C-alpha cells in the first residue's frame, strides 16, 4: 500500500506519460486527421497486459486498446521491437484505426508496454478514405493487418498498399515516436523509483480507479433495467437489446437478444461494444476517474458471439465504429434514464476521380437531468471539428447554401433537448454522394416524460433519401441534411409529480384512431412517447397530428418502421389481419423483434392465428383488449387485460400504463381476448336483465327512481345499472359502445365457450336480443338500445 500523496503523484505521472505520448503523436503526425481532428489515443500497460492509463482524445478509443495488447501479449518481446495491427478480429476496431505497441524494457526485464492508436486517413481498399458506406465484408474496407512486427520494411510494405503512402509512413513513424517517448519516460520512472515500486504503483493505480468506479456504482439502486433501440440498415431494422443489472458495486451489461450480425457494415467487434459501454458509464459516473482498466473491472459486458455487437470475421465493421457505437452508448444511457442525443455522426462523403470530401455533422444532445442539451454538437463517440464553409468552398466544387440550427428539433421537456443542424450543399460539378446516417426514422427518445427529438432527414432537391444512400449529384442539385434533435428530460410542465427518472419513453405507433383509439393515442402522446399514427381515413390522422405531438404515417408499414411497439385499435379480426399482415401492413415495415399490441376485441382464436403468422415473420404479438368506454379512454383509466409472454407484457407495460389504470396479465396469447369477451357477455346480459327489471316495475306501477335507488344501494346493483338504467329510461343511445360491436363480442364468447364445451345460456339469450335490435336497425346505436327489443316484447315503454 502506498500513501495518498504518492498515489496521486504516481497517478499523475502515469497520466503525464500518456499525455506526453499523445502530444508527440499529434505533433509529429502528418495527416490532418491526427493533427487537427486529434483522432488518436495513447496508453501504457502493465507487463500482464492490463491497461494502467490512457490518454484518449476521442471517446471511441476508450477502453478498446486492451484487446490490441492482448493480441500480442503471448509473443516473444525484445527491446525496441514494436508491433502493429488493425484487424478488428485480432485486437483492432475498424481498419483505419492502426495500433502500434512497443514493449518497455529496463534492467533486462519487460516492465510495461506503450501503445498508440491513430485513425489513418486511408488504409487502402476500393474506396478513398477507407470508409465505404456500402461494404459487406472486411476486404471491402481496406488492408487487414494481423499482429506483426513493425520495422522499416513493414512500414514500406504496408504504406505501399495504401493511398498517400508518404503520409502513411509519416503517421506510422509518429506513432513509433510517441511510443518511444513513453518508453523513455517509463524507464526514467523505473530508474527513479525502482522496479518494485513501479509494479506496486501500477497495481495501486488500477485499484484506485476500480475503487472510484465501485463507489459510483454502489450509489446506484440495485436491480435490473432494460433498454433497446434500433439501427436503420439498408433493409429492415437491427435491434440492440440490453439488460443492465446493478448489484452492489458492480454492473453487468448483457446484450443478449440483439440482432445477429448482418451483411452490411454496422457490425462491431466486442472491443468497440466495450468502449461504447465505457463511454456511457463514464458519462453516468464520474469523468474524473482515471481512464484505466481498473475502472472497468466492476463492469461486465456480455454480447453473444455472432451477434451485431460481437461479430465474427469477416463481417464488415466500418459503420459499427461510427454509428452502432453511438446506439450502444444510447441503450446504456437509456437504461439509466437518460435522454438520448442525435445518435449518429451523419457521415457524408462526396467525391469524384479528382477530389474526395468527407464530413460528419453535429446535432442535438439529449437533455441532462439538470440542464438543457447543447445544440449542434457531436454527441457521443465522436468529437471532431466541422469544415469551415469558406475552406470548403475554396477547396471543393461545392457551395454551401445553408448552415444553421434546426430550431425546434430538440425535444421539449423540463430540460430541452438540443437542436439539430441544417447543412445544405449544392454541387458545382458532378459528384458521387454516399450517406451513412441513422435516426432518420427513429426519433431520439426523451426521459422522465421529456419529449423525443425530431428524426433527421436527408433530402436531394427536396426529395427524401433513405438513411443509407449512394448516388450521383449533378451540377446544381442540392443535398440537404437535417440532423436529429436530442430528447428532452422531465415533463415539459412542472405541475405534475412525474418523477420517475428510470423511465425512458419509447417509440410507439398507434394504428386506428376511432372513438377509443384517438383517446388512447392522445394519452401516449401526453406521456412523452415518440408517437407515429395511422388511420384508414387520413383526415382523422391529420387532425390528430395537428392537435398532438405525433408524426403522420401514410401506411401501417411506414408507421411500424418508426416504432418498436405498434398498437392496433380497429374493429374486428379481419381489419386487424389487414393492418398487421396485409400489403403495406405492419409486418412489411417493422424491424425484427417489433412488438405488436392489439387492443381491438377480436376473440382468442383469431388472435392466436395472427400471432403465429407474425411470429414466423420475426415479430411479436400481445393481445391487450380494453374495457371502459370513451370517458375512461379519455382519462387514461381503462382496464386492460393482456395475453402473451411475460417479457412482452413488461415491454408494453409503460405504454399500457399511460392508457389504463388496471392492467392485468391474464396468461398466454389470446387470454386477454378471452377475459374481455366473457366480461362483455356478462355486461350485455346484465344490461338486458336491468332493462327487464325496469319493465317489470313499470308494468307494476312501481316508481322507477325508487327501484333504481334501492338496487343501486344493495345487492341488486351493478355497473350496468349505474351506466345504462338512465340511458334506457331516456332512450338516449348516444354511442359509448356500439350495439353491433357488443353483439360481435357476445358471439365470440359463445363460440369460444362452445369450442371449449362450456354452455352459457344467458349469454345466448342476450345474443338473440341483440340480434333482434340489429334487425331494428340499431347496430350503430349504443347497446343500451337493446331496451327497444325488450319493450317490444313487454309491450310497454319506459318513462
Amino acid at each position, binding site marked *: 500500500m502506498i500513501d495518498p500523496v504518492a498515489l496521486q503523484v504516481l497517478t499523475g505521472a502515469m497520466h503525464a506519460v500518456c499525455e506526453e505520448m499523445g502530444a508527440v503523436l499529434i505533433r509529429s503526425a*502528418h495527416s490532418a486527421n491526427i493533427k487537427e481532428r486529434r483522432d488518436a489515443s495513447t496508453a501504457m500497460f502493465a507487463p500482464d497486459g492490463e491497461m494502467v492509463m490512457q490518454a484518449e482524445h476521442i471517446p471511441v478509443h476508450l477502453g478498446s486498446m486492451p484487446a490490441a495488447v492482448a493480441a500480442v501479449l503471448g509473443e516473444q518481446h525484445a527491446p525496441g521491437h514494436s508491433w502493429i495491427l488493425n484487424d478488428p478480429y485480432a485486437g483492432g476496431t475498424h481498419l483505419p484505426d492502426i495500433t502500434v505497441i512497443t514493449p518497455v524494457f529496463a534492467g533486462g526485464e519487460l516492465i510495461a508496454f506503450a501503445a498508440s492508436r491513430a485513425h489513418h486517413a486511408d488504409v487502402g481498399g476500393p474506396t478513398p478514405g477507407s470508409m465505404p458506406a456500402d461494404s459487406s465484408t472486411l476486404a471491402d474496407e481496406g488492408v487487414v493487418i494481423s499482429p506483426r512486427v513493425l520495422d522499416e520494411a513493414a512500414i514500406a510494405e504496408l504504406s505501399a498498399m495504401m493511398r498517400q503512402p508518404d503520409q502513411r509512413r509519416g503517421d506510422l513513424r*509518429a506513432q513509433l515516436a510517441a511510443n518511444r517517448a513513453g518508453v523513455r519516460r517509463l524507464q526514467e520512472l523505473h530508474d527513479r523509483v525502482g522496479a518494485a515500486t513501479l509494479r506496486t504503483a501500477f497495481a495501486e493505480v488500477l485499484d484506485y480507479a476500480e475503487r472510484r468506479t465501485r*463507489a459510483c456504482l454502489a450509489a446506484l439502486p440495485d436491480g435490473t433495467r432494460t433498454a433497446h433501440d434500433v439501427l436503420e440498415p439498408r433493409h429492415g431494422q437491427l435491434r440492440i437489446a440490453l439488460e443492465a443489472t446493478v448489484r452492489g458495486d458492480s454492473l453487468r451489461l448483457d446484450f443478449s437478444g440483439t440482432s445477429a450480425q448482418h451483411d452490411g457494415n454496422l457490425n462491431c467487434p466486442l472491443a468497440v461494444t466495450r468502449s461504447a459501454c465505457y463511454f456511457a458509464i463514464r458519462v453516468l459516473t464520474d469523468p474524473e476517474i482515471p481512464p484505466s482498466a481498473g475502472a472497468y473491472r466492476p463492469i461486465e459486458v456480455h454480447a453473444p458471439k455472432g451477434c451485431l455487437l460481437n461479430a465474427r470475421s469477416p463481417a464488415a465493421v466500418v459503420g459499427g465504429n461510427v454509428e452502432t457505437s453511438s446506439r450502444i452508448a444510447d441503450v446504456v444511457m437509456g437504461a439509466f434514464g437518460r435522454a438520448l442525443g442525435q445518435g449518429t455522426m451523419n457521415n457524408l462523403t462526396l467525391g469524384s476521380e479528382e477530389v474526395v470530401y468527407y464530413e460528419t455533422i453535429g446535432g442535438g444532445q439529449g437533455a441532462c437531468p439538470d440542464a438543457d442539451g447543447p445544440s449542434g454538437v457531436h454527441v457521443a463517440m465522436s468529437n471532431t471539428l466541422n469544415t469551415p464553409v469558406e475552406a470548403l468552398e475554396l477547396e471543393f466544387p461545392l457551395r454551401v447554401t445553408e448552415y444553421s*440550427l434546426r430550431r425546434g428539433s430538440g425535444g421539449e421537456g423540463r430540460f430541452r433537448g438540443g437542436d439539430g443542424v441544417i447543412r445544405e450543399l449544392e454541387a458545382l460539378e458532378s459528384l458521387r454522394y454516399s450517406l451513412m446516417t441513422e435516426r432518420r426514422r427513429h426519433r431520439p427518445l426523451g426521459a422522465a416524460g421529456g419529449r423525443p427529438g425530431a428524426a433527421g432527414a436527408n433530402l436531394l432537391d427536396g426529395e427524401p433519401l433513405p438513411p443509407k444512400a449512394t448516388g450521383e449529384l449533378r451540377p446544381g442539385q442540392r443535398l440537404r441534411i437535417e440532423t436529429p434533435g436530442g430528447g428532452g428530460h422531465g415533463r415539459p410542465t412542472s405541475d405534475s409529480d412525474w418523477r420517475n427518472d428510470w423511465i425512458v419513453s419509447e417509440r410507439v405507433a398507434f394504428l386506428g384512431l376511432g372513438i377509443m383509439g384517438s383517446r388512447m393515442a392522445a394519452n401516449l402522446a401526453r406521456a412523452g412517447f415518440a408517437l407515429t399514427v395511422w388511420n384508414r381515413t387520413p383526415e382523422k390522422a391529420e387532425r390528430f397530428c395537428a392537435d398532438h405531438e405525433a408524426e403522420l404515417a401514410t401506411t401501417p408499414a411506414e408507421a411500424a418502421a418508426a416504432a418498436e411497439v405498434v398498437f392496433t385499435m380497429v374493429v374486428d379480426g379481419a381489419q386487424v389481419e389487414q393492418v398487421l399482415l396485409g400489403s403495406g401492413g405492419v409486418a412489411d415495415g417493422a424491424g425484427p423483434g417489433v412488438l405488436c399490441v392489439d387492443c381491438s376485441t377480436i376473440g382468442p382464436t383469431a388472435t392466436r392465428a395472427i400471432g403465429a403468422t407474425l411470429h414466423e415473420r420475426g415479430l411479436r404479438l400481445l393481445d391487450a383488449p380494453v374495457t371502459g368506454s370513451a370517458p375512461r379512454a379519455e382519462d387514461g383509466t381503462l382496464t386492460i387485460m393482456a395475453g402473451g409472454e411475460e417479457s412482452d407484457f413488461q415491454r408494453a407495460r409503460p405504454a399500457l400504463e399511460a392508457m389504463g389504470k388496471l392492467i392485468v396479465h391474464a396468461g398466454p396469447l389470446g387470454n386477454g381476448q378471452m377475459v374481455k369477451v366473457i366480461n362483455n357477455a356478462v355486461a350485455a346480459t346484465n344490461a338486458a336483465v336491468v332493462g327487464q327489471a325496469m319493465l317489470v316495475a313499470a308494468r307494476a306501477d312501481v316508481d322507477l327512481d325508487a327501484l333504481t335507488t334501492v338496487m343501486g344501494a344493495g345487492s341488486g346493483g351493478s355497473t350496468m345499472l349505474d351506466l345504462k338504467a338512465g340511458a334506457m329510461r331516456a332512450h338516449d343511445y348516444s354511442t359509448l359502445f356500439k350495439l353491433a360491436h357488443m353483439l360481435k363480442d357476445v358471439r365470440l364468447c359463445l363460440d369460444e365457450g362452445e369450442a371449449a364445451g362450456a354452455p352459457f345460456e344467458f349469454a345466448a339469450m342476450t345474443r338473440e336480443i341483440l340480434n333482434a335490435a340489429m334487425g331494428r336497425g340499431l347496430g350503430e346505436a349504443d347497446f343500451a338500445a337493446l331496451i327497444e327489443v325488450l319493450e317490444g316484447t313487454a309491450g310497454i315503454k319506459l318513462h
Partner: protein
Amino acid sequence: MLLGVDVGGTFTDAVLVVGGRVVSAKAPSTPADQSLGVLAAISAALERAGSSAAEVTAFCHGMTVATNALLEGRGVPTALVITEGFTDIVELGRQNRPELYRLCATRPAPLVGAQLRFPAPERMTPDGPLRALTEAECRALARRVAGAGVESVGVTLLHSYRHPEHELELRNALAEEAPDVHVSLSHEVVGTFREYERAATTEVDAALSPLLGRYLRRLEQRGATAGLPEPAIMQSNGGLIDVASAADHASWTVLSGPAGGAAGAAFAAVAAGAPDVLCFDMGGTSCDVCVVDGGEVREQSAGEIAGRPLALPMLAVHTVGAGGGSIAWRDPGGALRVGPRSAGADPGPACYGRGGTEATVTDANLMLGYLAADAPLAGGVALDRERAERAIATLAAELGLAPLDCAEGIIEVANAEMTRALRVVTVQRGVDPRRFALLAFGGAGPLHAAAIADQLGITRIVCPRASGVLAALGLVISPRRRDVQRSVFLSGPALSAAAVSAIVAELGERARRALGEPEAALGATYELRYRGQAFELAIRGSTTPALGELREAFEREHDDRYGYRDAEQKLELVTIRVSATVPGAELELTAAGAPPIQRGRRAATLAGAELELEVVRGAPSPGTEIAGPAVVELAEATLLVPPLWSGSVDEAGTIMLERPR
C-alpha cells in the same frame, strides 16, 4: 520618465522608470471603474519617486476591461449582420463539445441572441459576387439595425476576407441610417478566412468596443486632469496602440494584461543574459506559462479566451488552474488532490483568517516554514499559522497522514500538476525544457520554482527583483504596433514575388497609416501550407521575400514541426500579416537604491527533513551570494532555495540560481 500601469485581479501596479531605477506602487483594483485604481496607483508611485505628473513622458497601460467583460459575457446591446442562411454560425461554432463526458457542458452563449442577428440578402463566393447586395437592400438592413435599439453592430459576410465590397457598402449605409451605432466589419477586425472564428471575433469586437471606449475616455479625462499624457494601450499581440484605435477594436486588447506580463518576463530574461526561458507566473488562483525564445515571447496566430475564439495574433500565454489559493481535498478513491477549486482572495486560504477553513497550497507553504508567519504578504495580508495548521490537520486526519506529511504532500501534488501542464505545453510547442532556464514570478511562482525545475530537468532559475510588478514594467518597454492581415490564397503562378511584395506594401501602408507613423518599421509574417492541408504554419520573412527563401523557411519549419518536407508538393500562401512597429524605450535597470537586507534563520520541513533555512529579507544587492537551504523574501514574492541550489544577484538585482546536473 516612463510610466507603466497594469490592472490585475486584486491589485493595480504602477511603475515609474527614472533613469534605470524602478519605483513601484500598488493600489487596490477598482473593478467598477478601473481608472480610479489606476490613478490611485499612479499618485502613490509619483509620491514614492518624489516626482510629478508633468515629468511623465510616456504612459503605457495594460488593463482587463475587455477581458473581464468577455469572461462575464457582458457587452453593449449589439446586432449582427451575417450572410443569409448563415446567421447561426457563431452559435454553431465548430460542432465539437467542450467536454467529452459532461454532455451538457456548454460553450459560452453567443453575445448576440438570434433575434438580433439580421440576414444580409447577398452572397460572395471565392470568385466574387453570386448575389449582389443592392443599395436599397443595404439601406433597408441599416434601417432595421437602427430600429433594433442597439449600440453596436458586427458585420460578417462570407468570403469578405477577399471580397470586402458588401461589408463596406453596409458601413456606408449604416453611417447614414444609424450614425450613432458602432460598426465592426469582419474583414477589418480580422481579415482572415474561416467564417466562425472571424464572425465570433467580430461579435466580441462589436459588443465590447463601446464599453472599452467609455472606459478609455474616462481614463483619458482623469489622466489629463492629473496632468498625464494620453495613455498608450497594450494589445494582445504585445504592442501598444493609441486610445482611439483601442476603443474602435476592443477585440485587439482582450489579452492586454497577460501580454504585459509576458513582455516584462522577456525583458527580464534578456537583461539577465538568459534569452531562452520558460516563464512561470503563479498567483492566487492560476498560473500563466509562456515560452521566451531568443529573447522574444512566442506568438500565435489565434487563440481562445473563456471558450471564445479570437482569430488575431497574440502572445502565446497558457493558463493553468493552480495557484496559492488552490484547495487540497481527499477524493473518493482516497488520493490527495489539489485544485481546481480555489479559495481565491476572499475568503482566501485558511491562514488569511477571513473565514476560509479548507487547506490550500499557501497554508502548506506557511506550515512548512517557507512563508514567514510574522511578515505580511503583498497587499498587507497577515498570515495566521495556527489556522493553517488546523485546516491541514483536518485534511491529514481524513487521509490518515501526519500533518507535516500532509502539508508536504499538498506541495508535492501541486508541483506535480504544474509540472505536468508545463511538460505538455513545452512538448506541444516542440521545446525541450532542459535547454531553458525557468523564470519564476508572481507572488507564489518563486516558492515552487526549484521543485518544478528539478522535475523538468531544468538547472537554472531566474528571479527578477521586480517579480511582483513585472507586467507593469513590461508595458513601458513594449513597442507601439499595428497589425494588418489578409487571407490571399496564392499558389501556382499567382504566387509570385511581385504579387507578394505588392500586397505586403499595401498592407504595410495601411498599418503605418493606422499607427500614424509613416516611417514605422515593417515586419511580415506569412502563413503557408502545402496545397490541400487544413492548417498553416506562420513564417516570419522579409517584406520583399524571394519565393525560394519563403519555401525554404516554410519547409524547415514543417520539417521541424512535422518531421518531413515534401519537395513535390505545391506551396500555398494563405495569409499575409504585416506589422508596423516603433520600438519602445531602451532600458537598463540598476539595483541601486534598495534598503539593505536583513538576515535571519527559520526552522522548516523540506523533503521529510527538519532543517534551518537562511532567511534573506528585502532585495539583495548585486553580488550577494545565496545558497540553499534558504528563502529570499522579496517585496512581493518569496523565493525558496532548496539544498543543492545556489547562486548570486546580478547588476539589475535579479537572483540567478543554479544546481549541478
